[in-house]
């Protein structure tokens, strides 16, 4: 999914917010029509293998694709019956130009070719619990750029971190693919309200790090990372600290 598509979806969403009427049909005129090539395809009552098959579409029958959710497609027959069909069976249909319907099931290769990735993570920062999320944009399969927000929750203070970094992934084809990162940002420290010295402060930081990305399934991946931060304070000496984190993400 491209970003502009995501944005158009968001704008469609804001439109829908003002139009929250149940029972509306979203089958518009430019919906995609496909012809069944298999002996039949099974239509389930819901988007999942556990939902029962309530009807089938036979060979040569034309169905309209209304939408996709994960690996399931909502289709409508000529008689107006709707049902969910799994991606493997949708591959056995052809479009109006006679070509088979090209459908993407997400695989490890797609993970290599990803453009966007999003993840949230938890971890440890010098004894404080760390949590946060990031968005990444891949320039190519080796180089990407990331932006992240984190919060570290310690006994005496809580810290907010904002970072921008570059990520180099020299072996994108490996299952356990290592990466190296370099970046900078700011850290804002809010001392705990029970402490006497309760002055908030903001400092700039720089960091280096390394980690592993592991493709899991579909659009999911796992990521573990270690970072070393240096904080440039206005006080007498600079500080540094370490950060460990592990996260679950999805990609487009």
């Amino acid at each position: 999914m491209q970003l502009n598509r995501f944005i158009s979806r968001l704008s469609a969403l804001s439109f829908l917010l003002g139009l929250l009427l149940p029972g509306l049909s979203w089958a518009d005129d430019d919906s995609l029509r496909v012809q069944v090539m298999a002996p039949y395809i099974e239509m389930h009552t819901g988007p999942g293998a556990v939902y029962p098959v309530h009807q089938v579409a036979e060979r040569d029958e034309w169905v309209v694709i209304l939408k996709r959710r994960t690996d399931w497609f909502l289709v409508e027959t000529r008689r107006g019956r709707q049902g969910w069909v799994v991606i493997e069976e949708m591959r056995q249909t052809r479009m109006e130009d006679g070509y088979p319907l090209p459908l993407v099931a997400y695989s490890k290769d797609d993970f290599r070719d990803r453009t966007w990735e999003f993840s949230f993570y938890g971890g440890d920062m010098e004894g404080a619990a760390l949590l946060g999320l990031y968005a990444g944009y891949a320039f190519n399969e080796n180089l990407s750029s990331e932006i992240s927000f984190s919060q570290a929750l310690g006994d005496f203070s809580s810290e907010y971190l904002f970072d921008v970094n570059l990520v180099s992934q020299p072996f994108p084809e490996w299952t356990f693919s290592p990466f190296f990162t370099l970046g900078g940002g700011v850290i804002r420290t809010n001392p705990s309200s029970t402490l006497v010295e309760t002055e908030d402060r903001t400092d700039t930081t720089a960091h280096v790090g390394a980690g592993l990305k592991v493709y899991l399934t579909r659009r999911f991946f796992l990521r573990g990372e270690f970072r070393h931060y240096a904080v440039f304070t206005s006080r007498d000496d600079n500080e540094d600290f370490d950060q460990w984190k592990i996260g679950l993400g999805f990609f487009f």
Partner: protein
Amino acid sequence: MENRTRFLFLSTAALLGLFTLSTGHAEEGLLGDNLREELLVEPEIARREISEPNFDEEDFEIGAYVGLMNIEDFGTSAAYGLRLAYHGTESIFLEAAIGTSEANETSYEQLSGDVQLLTDRERKFTYYNLSAGYNILPGEVFLGGKYAYNSQFYLIGGIGSTRFAGDDEFTINVGAGYRLLINDWLTIHLDARDHMFDSDLLGESKTTHNFEMTGSLTFFF
């Protein structure tokens, strides 16, 4: 004689040329370019861009919720929030949520008259969390003999942060919910969640359990 010599020479050359052609070395054959072009058949296959057709993909779910939250030692009050989920497979989803509630007075504050443990601002209970969910019991519910709706019972848990009484606390949430799909894009949730964090607000440090029961309206986009 001259003709015969020419014939032999040419036929040998032609045979050699055919031989080289048949063994796949046509490039260096002795036949002229014209003949070679006649022998080769240019494939007339138009290149076709294979790209997935554009249709509506609805893997995201967004919505708002209202309900009740029991803040440990501080009574029960209204809670509300927003949730955004991404469905990666038919079973697994990731969810980000922000919510807020407000603490009442403790029983001590109520009994002692005008003692106030917290300022009004500190009574605000706000949280955000990042969770993973699993649709464990998908099913169908029937309304009368005519209507059937898909439903999913899910388990969910994650991490987040809660701001209460002037402090941010690392919070773990676990819970379960029930998602009823009114149609293929509109859903109703019932969700029960326990937000757990360590607090030393009332003297000794303890893990507080803050139960939240909410109902929400969400839709897929």
